[in-house]
């Protein structure tokens, strides 16, 4: 096939696909009304609450490692006392949302894709339709909203735990005074640093749930189809998070 035609085909496929995903996402978000609180609550537990341990541990170790890095790096230009401020800003603006988002992608995008994919291949989604129930309302909407609502909270918790990880290392290994460390963490932090990170969290949560739902609902046949859906959901969610992070950072801090 000639390259021009191939490019055209690819572009058409990409825009067509994007259009379909956008419609899917829009209908999924709109499908939350009328609110079925039970369904939403269940997903908030599944997506938010059960992700707390993994997000917390990730943040703890990241904050701790960051403190070590900044300290040894900062020593080169006699600036090792910036550790608390840099750890706080780095966690809150960047590492909290991105690593939290990636961990949620690993845990949640895969789980959603596997569950919905299995429902697809065992005709449970078709059965929903024959019971006058819109799968977008029943399955997709609660997952999208639960992720959008809970991932910012996870990010907030991750921010705190990460700063605490830095503090633990700072106080116990780097010789910081505990009160000074805490004071310096807050001193240079602006509210927009935190809020921008939480907005990123909401966006990443949306991407994770959307990826899981999209690949799950469109899973191919059999166990292999579900496997492929799961892999694709995690890969696409992770790449989308990193790309969206770049774009949002550019929008927020340029």
């Amino acid at each position: 096939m000639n390259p021009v035609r191939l490019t055209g085909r690819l572009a058409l496929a990409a825009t067509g696909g994007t259009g379909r995903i956008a419609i899917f996402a829009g209908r999924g978000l709109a499908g939350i009304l009328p609110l079925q609180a039970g369904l939403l609550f269940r997903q908030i537990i599944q997506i938010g609450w059960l992700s707390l341990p993994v997000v917390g541990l990730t943040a703890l170790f990241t904050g701790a490692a960051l403190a070590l890095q900044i300290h040894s790096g900062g020593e080169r230009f006699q600036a090792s006392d910036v550790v608390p401020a840099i750890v706080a800003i780095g966690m809150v603006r960047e590492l909290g949302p991105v690593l939290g988002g990636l961990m949620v992608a690993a845990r949640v995008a895969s789980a959603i894709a596997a569950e919905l994919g299995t429902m697809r291949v065992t005709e449970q989604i078709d059965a929903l339709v024959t019971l006058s129930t819109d799968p977008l309302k029943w399955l997709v909407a609660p997952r999208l909203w639960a992720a959008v609502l809970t991932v910012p909270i996870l990010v907030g918790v991750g921010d705190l735990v990460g700063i605490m990880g830095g503090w633990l290392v700072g106080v116990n290994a780097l010789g910081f005074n505990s009160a000074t460390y805490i004071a310096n963490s807050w001193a240079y932090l602006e509210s927009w640093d935190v809020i921008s990170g939480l907005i990123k969290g909401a966006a990443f949560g949306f991407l994770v749930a959307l990826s899981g739902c999209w690949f799950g609902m469109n899973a191919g046949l059999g166990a292999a189809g579900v496997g492929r859906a799961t892999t694709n959901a995690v890969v696409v969610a992770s790449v989308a998070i990193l790309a969206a992070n770049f774009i949002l950072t550019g929008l927020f801090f340029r």
Partner: protein
Amino acid sequence: MSALISVRGARKSFGSKQVLAGLDLDLAEGESLVVIGGSGSGKSVLLRAILGLETLDSGQVLCRAKPMQGRVRDDFMDSFGMLFQNAALFDSLPIWRNVAFRLLGRMPAAKARALAIEKLDRVGLGPEVADLFPAELSGGMRKRAGLARAIAASPKVIFFDEPTTGLDPIRAATINELIRSILDESGVSAITITHDMTSVRTIADRVALLDHGQIRWQGPVARMDDAKDDYLRDFIAGRARPMARNTEPG
């Protein structure tokens, strides 16, 4: 009067394999149609296509002379029930919530549960299965729970995809009687797929034989036995015949 469901010139291929080859079929209001045909001949695909779960390559499905889409399809679904070939119970819900799925939006949970347990009883499942999950049931039990779900909200149109497959002969006979009694209630229309000739004779008003992606023979169940069609005769008698014809429809 126009038929409840009309399929017109339905074509459907998967890759190079043509499953429906310009198929025409009608279901009259209040009628019980049984579709028979070789394994893999496209019976389940036909039901899915009627419901819009499978998009046709060409041809159309009409519901009372209107295309089965949008509001027409939504209205149709509101008084519809389906038993899927593999039951398709919701894994994440206990059996009673599966059976009561449609009822739960319409009445208090306690009442829906009581009704679900009553429907389970009609398909020979005791109240002890109500709180089990689908994965904890045998294949035949799942099938019967799926049947209970299909009939729970007293639908006006029901599709049964192999209701007795995987059941012991006594259970199968009970289910046939149950389906017959549901169909005798006024105004219920049904399409049943089965390989079980006892089912055919118990349930059917009219029989259609699917072959090569088309309806090869159809007529009242009473005329089935003196039909001239030799494939149908072999089918009824359960006689072996060369199967090559069944691998390349159309």
